[in-house]
């Protein structure tokens, strides 16, 4: 099934929990309808076993699998795969609408590094994002693991990765930057834990990045370090606190936000491929 371009709008402004996924063995694009049926039956069976997902309300879960052809980096990438769970309460009329309750999608954006190195019969979709109840994520995840012999792991985003993201996203050209460039730090090991939110006007953050970046289109680790050092120095000048010694846990810009526990929100459609490319790269390094 081919998806229409409007489908990608649902990806924006949702908080996605991000995982890395090892290559799927024996996955066949032509069998999406069969997989939907099998996954639906699996979920129904698990619910009967007493692993109740919704308490109180009797719900039938309908499963739909589709391809999102627009979400890929190059022809070498597999098209993204969307899994959608909807509920329809039992006993309501036949024409009642299905209410979506859970989304999960697999994708690969410029993930050639991985796809080039796997043998035949393996499909590479190393990035998985889910939104909805954790219990559904567990059910869908365990079915995929059993069926395609793959492994899901929550994506840990290190302070180093987060600083790359904030530097990159702060430097993006936008007609109108509406949100501040915010960095959130945590100092947990004190007797009284401390959180520090450091939010910079987006124009000023971009102006700083523009003087740091030497070659447009290219970003080096050194440039990211200089950018961060400038922010730390400005902070230290005022508060005498060494921010670099604190833990960077979340970054947020007009384009996207990311939390170290592997939660990401994409806010700007123009930069969706760029964000996915970065996440694909992180997922692949976590797999390898």
């Amino acid at each position, binding site marked *: 099934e081919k998806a229409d371009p409007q489908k990608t709008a649902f990806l924006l402004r949702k908080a996605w929990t991000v995982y890395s996924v090892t290559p799927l063995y024996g996955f066949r694009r032509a069998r999406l309808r069969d997989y939907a049926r099998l996954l639906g039956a699996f979920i129904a069976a698990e619910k009967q076993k007493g692993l109740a997902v919704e308490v109180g309300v009797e719900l039938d879960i309908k499963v739909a699998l589709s391809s999102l052809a627009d979400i890929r980096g190059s022809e070498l990438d597999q098209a993204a795969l969307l899994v959608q769970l909807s509920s329809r309460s039992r006993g309501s009329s036949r024409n009642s609408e299905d209410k979506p309750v859970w989304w999960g999608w697999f994708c690969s954006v410029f993930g050639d590094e991985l796809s080039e190195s796997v043998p035949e019969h393996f499909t590479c979709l190393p990035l998985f994002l889910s939104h909805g109840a954790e219990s559904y994520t567990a059910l869908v995840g365990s079915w995929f693991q059993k069926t395609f012999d793959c492994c899901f792991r929550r994506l840990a985003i290190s302070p180093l990765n987060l600083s790359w993201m904030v530097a990159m996203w702060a430097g993006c050209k936008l007609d109108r930057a509406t949100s*501040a460039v915010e960095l959130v730090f945590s*100092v947990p*090991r*004190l*007797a*009284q*834990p*401390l*959180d*520090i*939110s*450091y*939010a*910079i*006007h987006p124009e*000023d953050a971009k*102006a*700083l990045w523009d*003087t*740091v970046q030497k070659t447009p289109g290219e970003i080096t680790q050194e440039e990211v370090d*200089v950018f961060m*050092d*400038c922010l730390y*120095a*400005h*902070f230290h*000048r*005022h*508060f*005498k*606190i*060494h921010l670099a*010694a*604190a833990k960077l846990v979340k970054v947020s810009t007009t384009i996207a936000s990311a939390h170290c526990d592997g939660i990401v929100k994409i806010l700007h459609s123009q930069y969706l491929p760029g964000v996915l490319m970065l996440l694909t790269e992180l997922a692949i390094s976590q797999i390898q």
Partner: protein
Amino acid sequence: MDETVAEYIRRTVLKIPRDEIRMMLQKWGFLSEAQLQTLNFNQIKDNISQEVVQLCEENSADIKQAAVLDIIYNHIYQNKRMWSVYQMKKSGEELEYFDITDFKKNFKRRLRSALKNVTITFKEYEDNAIWIRVAWGTPYKKPNQYKPSYVVYHSQTPYVFISSSVLKSTLPLLCQALVVASNYHDIREMDLRSHSLNSLKDIVFKRYSQNFQTCTPKPLQGGNVEPENADIRIVEENRSEKERIHRLNQDVFGSGPQPKLEFAQYRLETMFKSDPKMDVLDKKEPFRCLVKFSSPHLLESLKSLAPAGMADAPLSPLLTCIPHKARNYFKIKEKKGLYRASFVSP
């Protein structure tokens, strides 16, 4: 009994933790001891509150009495609310004798002249604290009892603590009534906010132990200076640095417990300055930032940063001035001609 009053009492009792209901009803004093004896506190709260409502029905409770119970609840659970601090100003030097009856009368009169439908309740506590609860209505609607404002006024001081109703338009009316009733001339909001009402009082009444500059170095207490790891090789070298940090911390924070604040916010409009070698931003306009510090106990947390190696000692005056400047919201601009920041009130 009015059914809206019954419902209000029922909901208020439901908020109270089960093992505190009896105590609060006793403090309230509206139900007799005999009536309280009939209550079964070993059942679910839903049932307890229904029984309380029955008893209130017997005594024909009205909204005025129900409002007193609400004040009692909010006085005990004052830290659930966010409090802002206001300071009133007198036009002259006259010291007037404070008469509580006049105050209440004038407060009610001023509010009612502006708005007919209000419920106004007073309760006095120790420490000269007068608690005022105001429920707001409109010319056509009865007061909304579920979104009241609470005011704590210490009559011997110019300070008022307000936990505002979410109905923003009511704040100016409230301030006006306070100024008129207390014979002041003006009122202004301080940039000081916290959930801990007592800490706010500690700060403005200067009840916390403040830092004193000592001429001679104080003899060191044990405790804080003990190194955490027992590595004998580095004790000597590290010890003097730890002692120095400890001493500077004491000088700046004082040795007593700090008032409890949850956050401090700084709007920075200072210039970005960097090492010229780095060849980065050199704008003539300010580098605009908003910095927010949050902690269950902010000042204790900041105090522990230098000993933990996270900050220089002494810590920046921007942070250490919070209690004695009585503010936790700041706007910092560049001082002209000097490489320093100065405080500017918004």
